[in-house]
């Protein structure tokens, strides 16, 4: 019936996803396919698809960046909470070495502690090297002794009890459990997630608004068709479906294009950062973000975003058509 309507064969996307469209199902069933009531050419499809692709790309980038920062932050926190530090400051008339050994013994005796070790003088000198230079005689300086305590099970260690014992039994001792750092990291990670979710929300709102404008435009340019459909007794749901079909297709196409772009970008970045891992710049990036890989979950997230944008586009256009029809009844 519709030789005139399709001069070109269906594109790759149409062949892949066209199966979900009712007209395609009819075609597969061997029945002739009528031309769409709302012609695809009457909808400003290309520009809307580009807008949706850009939105999808930004949404996927945001999702990737958020998951990258969150994973890195969780990694840092996991490393930090597995280690605490005891500091023994020099006190007049007290043997700091002996106090440090005592603190180490107390720490090692606590449940959940893997081992406690007093840092050697050369290790202290190395820590201070950036400020005081090399070749220092540490015995001349009143610097505190540090005891590194590695935790086997952070949840099993009673830090309050350990701090209390150190306070009572070791002169000049103080416990640093890095809580300030982990709290800051948590705050930073949470802030990143909130910012990311806000950006995602804004991207989705912008997409919805674009689709609303495009649907209104499509309804306006197809006013005659809508009017005829009304007169021949078409239900609002039928008219909405005719428009929704186009927008679902556009949304899926744009969403997948954008998501593919973001996935390719992540794969390329991951590849180049993986190659430069031995360089100082690469070390810095990998120290911050690991191997800059978003992993299968990230790619799956991009696919979910693309599908979500497609479905959201279809639902938005459907609701817009309903509202438009209600206003002209």
């Amino acid at each position, binding site marked *: 019936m519709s030789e005139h309507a399709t001069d070109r064969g269906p594109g790759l996307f149409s062949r892949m996803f066209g199966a979900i469209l009712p007209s395609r199902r*009819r075609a597969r069933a061997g029945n002739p396919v009528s031309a769409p009531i709302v012609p695809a050419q009457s909808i400003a499809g290309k520009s809307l698809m580009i807008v949706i692709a850009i939105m999808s790309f930004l949404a996927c980038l945001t999702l990737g960046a958020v998951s990258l920062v969150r994973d890195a932050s969780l990694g840092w926190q996991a490393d930090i909470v597995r280690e605490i530090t005891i500091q023994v400051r020099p006190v007049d008339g007290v043997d700091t070495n002996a106090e440090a050994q005592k603190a180490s013994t107390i720490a090692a005796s606590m449940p959940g502690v893997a081992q406690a070790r007093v840092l050697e003088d050369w290790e202290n000198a190395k820590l201070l090297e950036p400020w005081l230079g090399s070749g220092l005689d540490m015995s001349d300086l009143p610097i505190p002794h540090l005891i590194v305590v590695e935790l086997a099970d952070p949840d099993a260690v009673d830090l309050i009890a350990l701090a209390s014992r150190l306070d009572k039994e070791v002169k000049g001792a103080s416990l640093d459990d890095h809580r300030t750092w982990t709290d800051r990291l948590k705050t930073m990670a949470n802030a990143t997630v909130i910012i990311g979710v806000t950006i995602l929300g804004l991207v989705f709102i912008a997409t919805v608004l674009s689709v609303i404008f495009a649907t209104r435009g499509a309804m306006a340019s197809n006013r005659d068709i809508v009017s005829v459909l009304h007169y021949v007794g078409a239900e609002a749901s039928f008219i909405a479906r005719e428009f929704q079909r186009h927008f679902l297709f556009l949304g899926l196409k744009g969403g997948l294009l954008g998501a593919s772009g973001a996935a390719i970008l992540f794969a390329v970045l991951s590849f180049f950062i993986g190659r430069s891992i031995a360089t100082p710049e690469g070390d810095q990036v990998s120290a911050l973000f690991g191997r800059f890989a978003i992993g299968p979950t990230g790619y799956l997230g991009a696919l979910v975003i693309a599908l979500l944008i497609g479905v959201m586009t279809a639902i938005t256009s459907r609701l817009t058509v309903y509202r438009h029809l209600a206003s002209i009844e």
Partner: protein
Amino acid sequence: MIRFENVGLRYGMGAEVLRDLSFQIAPKSFQFLTGPSGAGKSTLLRLLCLSLKPTRGLITVFDRDVVTLPKADLPALRRRVGVVFQDFRLLDHLTTFENVALPLRVLGREESSYRADVVELLKWVGLGDRMQALPPILSGGEKQRAAIARALIGQPEILLADEPTGNVDPPLAKRLLRLFVELNRLGTSVVIATHDIGLMNQFDARRLVLHEGRLSIYE
């Protein structure tokens, strides 16, 4: 079938364009709706085909009060009324066959279930060899017949035609009138809005004459 009681209609805050209309359209009846340009024929047709609501009075269509009718019930009622527009309102990107089949397609029916009916109707209106043609290449008369076929394919109980012979030559106008009369004999009520006296004189039927928004009826 359709009943008007003291119906008045105004657009916005303007003067009434239709005043105190009271009449009935009986099943299987045939009537011409006539009057000078600007008398309100098109507005009355819009009231009859449920695209306008009166500002006062009562209109019942198939025993339903159109003022209180829920929006969701409108499409089912509209399907019982066939409309032929003066400007045809065929969809240019659909073939004649697809245009005529539109009222059945919106019901969600498969093409195979209505194909034979549409082909038969197109042959009946003399468009059997123009089924695959697009409206832009049809002549005025062909478009008119396609529009009539589209209004008839759903077997409406009443057919409203707005100046159906306005764009055709006299022989074709006569042929179209015969088509309407035959349709009426088969049981469909027909309302033809026209100001073509010659056409009305060809068939003895009830005349609804609108003048300055008021209706006179000549049985």
